[in-house]
């Protein structure tokens, strides 16, 4: 490219002048042609990813006609990604569900709400009476509003008396949760997005931020534009748009991230690059069980057995991970590992690690999270502005709803767990129920929940705001299981027909996003509220209403005695968090602000947890205090976690690694973005990315049809040898948004034994010309 620096200054200055002259309105904008006068504007967080961009929603005649990136939102400061720009169209697909539908044989027949809810309540009652409360279940979502998640948890745990509640966040964030809990004894990050602007060294671990957290990636790139010292280093198993824009791309063999992080720690310890003072004050060492299995068998269980270690014992553990050994496993050159370790430890560098599904969807996901914290704890680069480990989330309220409200089988709000009698007591008190009502034993993680449905141990399952029969791994088994009959009853609430509604016995039409009032919590602990701005179409109704209606019909209506439901529920929910380092503000504060990062104490949000001067729970003189980890005297844990292989690795018969993930234009299973013509045109169908040399060997050309098979299933896709993502040799990548190409049929349903999160990034497949 021949653009000189001078040209660039010239152009920038001209553009700046132009922008100033037009009062901030930009030429070339599609909006310029659109009449936005007379619109009523309101605020909301974006419906899609965990970044949590603020948007302004423009309404005319009861319809959303425009959205804009909210210039007042500290998250995105006016910017969106391409999905956000099309938010105004996601609710208006032609096939929007507007009436309850009940299965009559092979047909879905329109019904009234009363009819549908009476049928559902009858099925719940019957199953509970015959088989007990653990035969009914609710499967929810990181796209549930806080209210929807809270109501579901309260009804199932506190009313019906079963822990059969799981969110799809089990499939995306569970390893992040167990990582936080085991290292710091409290979920969610210490840092915030400000770190993206203030640091200078960013290690991305298996995170394609340019496509999956685009606005955050832009903040990183802006930082680099202003500060030439900034380095972005992308560790990956696939060359992505992110790799392309990073300063360095380091490819590694799938699963060897565990070895790499131990290798980096090995060098830090070997060369005494660690922060001894920090370690003495703030760190304890532990080890857990090894060879922990893969969760492939039904009813798999695992309990770790943490044992304290000394620093010397930890050093002994690291001895194995010499740069040479790690290089052999991972394929990363020895010099690169040495250089990376030195960057991590460089006293003059503000180091951040960022990750998402590469670590979380991993059969050792909890370990991967522990190991990255190790690097920050060894070097003391944590809880400081501009230097932190940052776990990115995938869904708009994976944090706010599933993690904070605790809509997992084992959890209760504010980091509490059902296995702890005091926690049950506290929850029961706030909920006004008998503590004995909340069962002490967790039941099923998401995968196990659908295994139980397949076996027939669960009879009735209600799916809300998610699409499990496209998004579960080893789909064939769970899709078949759902329709085995014999008393099984599947209810799906959604806004469009999906691969899950097609398996339902009852489909309920839901309200979405600004068709209802809601609260989401994003990846930086920011809680964001919005009001209802338009009516849902036809007879579609809020999932919150649906859950409360079921409660009423089951005789648990007393659990929801509210008039202004959202506000009163919020004030009740807040009681869980108060004084726990997770404090939330009164409801009004969120209606007035563009979100606040918890803990919010005396109206003040917290940018950096555990850090004096920022976190009100840290006393003067303490500096840094991991105060939530009481059993280790307020210290964080460095874990000895070894490298262990994936559940299934390529072999002679299935010689390729399969990795699945997202593309920029589509979100999750594409049920909303797939209904926006512009997004569909920009990216229409899932393809099979593979390396040109592998293709050549197999006689596969760009655009030819390939049959991709694993031990669990097989699909035909178009080969893409030069797409935006480039597969490494021996690897293929397929996006999972495409409802016509159910790639998850091929994925293995192995999961991390600690977190229960499946590994969608690694299984073995073969390729043939189709």
């Amino acid at each position, binding site marked *: 490219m021949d*653009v000189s620096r001078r040209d660039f200054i010239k152009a920038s200055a001209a553009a*700046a002048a132009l922008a100033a002259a037009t009062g901030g309105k930009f030429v070339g904008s599609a909006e310029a042609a659109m009449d936005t006068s007379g619109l009523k504007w309101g605020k909301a967080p974006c419906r899609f990813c965990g970044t949590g961009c603020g948007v*302004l929603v423009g309404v005319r005649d009861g319809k959303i006609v425009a959205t*804009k990136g909210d*210039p007042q939102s500290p998250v995105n400061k006016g910017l969106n990604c391409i999905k956000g*720009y099309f938010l105004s169209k996601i609710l208006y697909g032609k096939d929007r569900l507007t009436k309850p539908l009940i299965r009559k044989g092979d047909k879905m027949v329109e019904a009234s709400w009363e009819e549908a809810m009476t049928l559902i309540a009858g099925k719940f009652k019957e199953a509970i009476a015959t088989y007990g409360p653990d035969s009914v279940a609710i499967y929810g979502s990181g796209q549930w509003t806080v209210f929807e998640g809270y109501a579901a948890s309260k009804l199932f745990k506190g009313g019906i008396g079963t822990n059969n509640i799981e969110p799809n966040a089990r499939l995306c964030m569970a390893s992040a949760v167990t990582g936080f809990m085991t290292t710091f004894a409290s979920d969610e990050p210490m840092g915030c997005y400000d770190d993206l602007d203030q640091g200078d060294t960013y290690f991305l671990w298996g995170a394609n931020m340019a496509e999956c957290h685009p606005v955050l990636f832009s903040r990183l790139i802006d930082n680099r534009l202003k500060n030439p010292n900034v380095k972005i280093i992308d560790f990956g198993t696939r060359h992505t*748009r992110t790799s392309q824009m990073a300063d360095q791309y380091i490819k590694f063999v799938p699963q060897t991230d565990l070895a790499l992080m131990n290798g980096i720690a090995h060098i830090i310890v070997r060369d005494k690059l660690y922060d001894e003072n920090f370690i003495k004050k703030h760190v304890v060492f532990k080890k857990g069980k090894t060879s922990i299995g893969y969760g492939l068998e039904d009813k798999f269980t695992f309990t770790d057995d943490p044992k304290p270690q000394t620093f010397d014992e930890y050093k002994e553990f690291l001895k194995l991970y010499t740069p040479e050994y790690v290089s052999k496993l991972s394929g990363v050159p020895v010099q690169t590992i040495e250089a990376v370790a030195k960057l991590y430890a460089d006293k003059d560098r503000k180091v951040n690690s960022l990750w998402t599904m590469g670590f979380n969807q991993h059969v050792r996901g909890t370990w991967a999270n522990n190991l990255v914290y190790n690097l920050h704890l060894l070097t003391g680069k944590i809880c400081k502005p501009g230097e932190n480990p940052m776990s990115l989330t995938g869904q708009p309220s994976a944090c706010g709803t599933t993690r904070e409200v605790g809509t997992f089988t084992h959890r209760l709000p504010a980091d509490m767990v059902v296995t702890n009698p005091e926690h049950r007591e506290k929850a029961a008190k706030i909920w006004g129920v008998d503590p004995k009502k909340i069962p002490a034993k967790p039941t099923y993680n998401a995968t196990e929940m659908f295994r139980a449905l397949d076996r027939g141990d669960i009879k009735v399952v209600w799916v809300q705001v998610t699409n499990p029969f496209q998004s579960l791994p080893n789909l064939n088994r769970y899709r078949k299981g759902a329709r085995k009959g014999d008393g099984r009853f599947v209810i799906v609430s959604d806004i469009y027909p999906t691969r899950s509604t097609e398996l339902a016995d009852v489909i309920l039409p839901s309200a979405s996003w600004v068709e209802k009032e809601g609260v989401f919590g994003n990846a930086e602990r920011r809680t964001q509220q919005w009001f209802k701005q338009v009516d849902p179409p036809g007879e579609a109704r809020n999932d919150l209403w649906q859950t409360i209606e079921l409660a009423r019909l089951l005789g648990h209506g007393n659990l929801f005695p509210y008039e202004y439901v959202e506000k009163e529920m919020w004030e009740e929910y807040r009681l869980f968090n108060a004084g726990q380092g997770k404090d939330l503000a009164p409801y009004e504060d969120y*209606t007035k602000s563009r979100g606040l990062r918890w803990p919010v104490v005396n109206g003040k949000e917290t940018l950096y947890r555990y850090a004096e001067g920022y976190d009100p729970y840290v006393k003067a003189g303490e500096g840094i205090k991991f105060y939530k980890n009481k059993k280790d005297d307020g210290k964080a844990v460095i874990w000895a976690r070894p490298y262990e292989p994936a559940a299934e690795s390529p072999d002679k018969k299935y010689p390729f690694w399969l990795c699945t993930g997202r593309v920029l234009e589509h979100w999750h299973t594409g049920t909303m973005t797939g209904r926006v013509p512009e997004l569909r045109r920009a990216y229409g169908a899932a393809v099979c990315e593979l390396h040109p040399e592998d293709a050549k060997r197999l006689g596969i050309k760009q655009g030819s049809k390939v049959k991709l098979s694993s031990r669990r299933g097989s699909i035909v896709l178009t080969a893409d040898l030069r797409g*935006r993502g480039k597969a490494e040799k021996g690897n293929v990548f397929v996006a999972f948004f495409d409802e016509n190409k159910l790639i998850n049929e091929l994925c293995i349903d192995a999961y991390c034994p600690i977190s229960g999160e499946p590994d969608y990034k690694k299984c073995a497949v073969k390729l043939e010309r189709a």
Partner: protein
Amino acid sequence: MKRYLPALTAAALSVLLLAPVLATAADDEAFEKDAAYAEGNPPMVPHRMEPGATGDACLACHLEGKNGAPISPHAVRIDCVQCHGQGEIKETKNATGKKKKKQKEIK
């Protein structure tokens, strides 16, 4: 990409990159003001895009308006494809301005 770096003035950045945050707005009127101030949504790209297109490739034309390309009003945002997706391909020209007989859509 880095060749641009030192060239940017803080002023250009604050105008172009990120709108300055005004006083907190709460009521409808304020939302309306914010909306008027906010940028419109970005146009899709009406010509063929290379799969790996990012700032370097796009700004080769859109920085100065070469080959009749509209000048980018915010050339400091270099992850162009984050906002500008592949649109309907209307022209018979590709991004480098050369005429092409037939043009295939990119998947």
